[in-house]
């Protein structure tokens, strides 16, 4: 195994899941540290400083949301939440507490690897501070320095709010961004509950950027959670 794509800390109590993830991740060039409990996970995180944390929400000892918060007290390591369907609410709270992304069980290996790649990319960007002023996704091109948006080389006129919305999604490209997060970023903290504002502007944005708004290619809705700008993995 010549390539080294990074060190992943896997906090998961079920041995079956750990085995599947171990095989998948190692065969894809990642190094792996495993922790069956939250306590163990915290300890491993401090000693091994991983590049990505995969965190299962249903841990026996520590609540996943608390764990996320405790990570965020001292590290910006990307945290990807793994949750079962019953933990829908906790998932959103974990995201709002600072987790970067989530996966709902059961998930495929491809999906997992894509999320890890996105997380790593964001982490590197953050560390180096380098930002490409031009974001390109298929026929969509956004020039962040001039605030211009092009679709199939045609400039699209966006309102200031639409643009800010798009910019936040681009900044987090590939990751899910919760409703609350978007509202706070674009409208300000006072509007954190006004989801219908967000819905209206997202609908407008979709109509401007998507060929078929009912089958969007870029602006993906994650029901009950938020939005994600899909990038080619």
């Amino acid at each position: 195994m010549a390539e080294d794509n990074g060190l992943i800390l896997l906090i998961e109590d079920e041995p079956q899941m750990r085995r599947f993830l171990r095989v998948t991740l190692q065969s894809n060039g990642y190094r792996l540290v495993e922790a069956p409990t939250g306590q163990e996970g915290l300890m491993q995180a401090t000693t091994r400083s991983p590049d990505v944390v995969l965190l299962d929400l249903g841990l026996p000892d520590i609540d996943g949301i608390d764990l996320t918060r405790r990570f965020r007290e001292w590290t910006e390591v990307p945290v990807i939440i793994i949750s079962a369907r019953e933990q829908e609410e906790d998932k959103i709270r974990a995201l709002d507490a600072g987790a970067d992304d989530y996966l709902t069980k059961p998930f495929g290996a491809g999906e997992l690897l894509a999320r890890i790649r996105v997380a790593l990319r964001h982490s590197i960007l953050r560390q180096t501070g380098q930002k490409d002023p031009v974001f390109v996704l298929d026929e969509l091109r956004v020039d962040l320095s001039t605030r211009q948006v092009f679709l199939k080389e045609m400039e699209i006129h966006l309102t200031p709010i639409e643009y800010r919305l798009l910019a936040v999604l681009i900044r987090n490209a590939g990751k899910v961004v919760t409703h609350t997060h978007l509202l706070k970023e674009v409208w300000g903290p006072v509007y954190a509950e006004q989801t219908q504002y967000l819905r209206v502007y997202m609908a407008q944005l979709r109509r401007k950027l998507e060929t078929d708004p009912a089958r969007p290619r870029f602006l993906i809705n994650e029901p009950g959670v938020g939005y994600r700008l899909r990038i080619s993995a």
Partner: protein
Amino acid sequence: MEEGRPDPELILAQLRMEEEKNREGQLKIFFGAAPGVGKTYAMLEAARQKLADGIDVVAGMVETHKRKETEELLKGLELIPRRQVEYRGTTLSELDLDRALERKPAIILVDELAHTNATESRHKKRWQDIYELLGAGISVYTTVNVQHIESLNDVIAQITGIRVRETIPDFLLDRADEIELIDLPPGDLLQRLREGKVYVSELAARAKESFFRRGNLLALRELALRRTAERVDAQMQTYREVKGVREVWPAGERILVCIGPNPLSIRLIRAAKRMAAGLRAEWIAVHIEAPSKVKPSEEDLRRLSEHMRLAESLGAETATLSSHKASEKILSYARDRNVTKIIIGKPTHPLWKDRLFGSLLDEVVRGSGKIDVYVITGDTSEPVPRPVARAAPQGASIAEWLLSLASVAACTGLAALMRPLFNPVDAAMVYILGIMVIASKAGKGPSVLSTFLSVASFDFFFVPPFYTFSVSDARYVLTFFVMFAVASVISRLTLRVRAQADAARQRERRTAALYSLSRKLVHERGIENLSSIAARHISDVFSSHVVVLVPDEGGKLTVPATGPETFALDQKEMSVAQWAFDHRQRAGLGTDTLSGAKALYIPLGAASKTVGVIGVLPGPTQEFFDQEQVHVVESFANQTAMAIERAMVSEEAQQSLLKAETEELRNTLLSSVSHDLRTPLAAITGAATTLMQKDVTLKASEQLELVQTIHEEAEHLNQIIRNVLDMTRLDAGAITVKKEWQPFEEIVGAVLNRLSERLGDRPLKTNLPEDLPLLVSFDPLLIEQVLMNLLDNSLKYTPEGTPLEISAFVKDGEIVMELADRGPGIPEGEEERIFEKFVRGSGSGGGIGLGLTICRAIITAHGGSITAENRPGGGAVFRFSLPLGEQPPLPEPED
């Protein structure tokens, strides 16, 4: 008759009684003929014996009267400290019931069963305390003398000349598990008395001389022996019946005793009890209320209610009947109830009244036919207060007084006009007419006034010499007298008729209220509604506040519905209500138990159990409830109890039905799940084991195919499990709809995105017009689930490559979404059935038939509807609608 075969019902009753008794404590009574026979001593000896056997015995209340032998015996027994009660400057010590209940010994000694507790105590009588102890599973040893037995009370008064005020109901003796007769020959007792070994209270000291006479003691001893023998006999009888020894046929006697407010009724009641006990017969105490009679006085009502209660306490059934003709009613009631003997009092009124108005006694005797009639003498030594019939006291208004003055003035005027034409005596007729009018309109006072004024005016204006009150002709004195007599008789009669009408109206009102209550209760469902209706009705009729309490699962009373007619219960009132409920007896205001309460509490006794309590708080104008009112409240309570029981039973039935359904669901679910889970599992296991085989080399394409199988089947399993989980959560009501405003296209987009892999290149047309309302309110996760299930079905049941179409439109204030396919369609007549649980479509790869059921549950929870039908031109269309509602505030457009 089959010999030797025990009556199963009797055995059951016996078993029930024994069960009840096992739960309750045992009652042992040390029974004596007179004070000083050594009951307390015997009780203590028995207690020591038990103590020696290792049984937990404590002394709750033992009067040693400072006698040495007795005090000696008390040593070594644990004493429960007495409760000290301050009463008019002296300190009384009473049994501390709460402490005794808390201590919960196996046996407690409580002396003097017939004792009356100090006021402020929970119960009026000590025997009620003992009842409560027994109810709590504590056995009680107690003592009592024969003269305290209720049914023997007046016999003993006749023998000894002393009336004992403290009595105990007879059923206590029947209730006792064991009665030990402490017998001492009169000679020995007198000897002990002379030696000062008999304690006699100071109050009774004066009576001592007359009481402790040899003759008296002999009689008392005989009564005590006989009473004990009767009981033993009864026990023997029960034993024989249970064991199938049936030579003695039950007599089947039933006794009816006619009672009224007359104090003599007490004698009748006791006589009836004795006769009933002797014949082992049931007995009924009946009061006949004559609607034609004027409303009885408060005093009469109070006495009547006392008599009724006495009869009840002696084990009688009581009934109040209403009839113009008392004799006919008594006889018809007696026949209805298969009464064999009627007990009736000897008339105390003078003979001429019978001659004039007919004799009740004669009529009953004459019409009695096969029924025996017993006539019992009244005790003439006691004064017999005649019940005084009088009109309901009511203050006359000023208008009535004025009316009476005006009427006399008008009569004077009219008579003056008539004077030239008629004889002066005819003027008197005019006045009498006036008096009649006043009596019919106004109260007693104005009527009397108008009578006097009329006579005076007649004298003054129409009797020569005119304009003086002197009378020249002696004939007019007679006229005055007749006029006065006629006027007062008319006035009294009119008033009486009015009072009767009032009484009838009141009765009418209550009957009507009762009727309307029962009618309303029939149409109501739910305990909450029933109790509030009952409370409202009773509150209306009695102008008081009423609350209905029902027990929760733990048997603790709660108020299911409050309203303006109810009243709030504080801790104390609540405990009184709880007591009434637990003991199935009336308690509170106007009763013997916890009479310090503000309200009266009547248990709601239904056929099988007590279902609650009704609390009645008198309005500001009344202080307490008379017997009649309590009876009416009880009939309301009965109606309510039956209705509540009905509601409870139907609720229970519903729950058990639900349980059965859940059970059935679980079974179907298990069988479905086990089948449907196994199919994909088999494929996965098969594929995986093939891949794991070491000695077989598979081609790359074969490997891929196996891996794909594993993946697809795992997906399938996931789908099944999700549906099962959702179904159980929907069934348990655990899913709540969290609506959010959002564009409809968003959710469609999310689902298509999620299913993109399975959709592949299936032609799919989405038709979401631009003019759809921007935001629709729904739960995104649940509606996503609906769309997923529908789309999943379409993919599963329609052939590869056939087109699908999703469209939405607005119709009648709802947003309608359609998913149409060009598959084989839905079998004829199955359009509704496919939404039922565990109904699945034909064809392969189906789920377990829950998908559509879940869809319907979710859509219904949103207030919408979902249907399926076949499309013209082939294929099926699934259609659901969601209510649109008002659009929420939208952000102001930019720019």
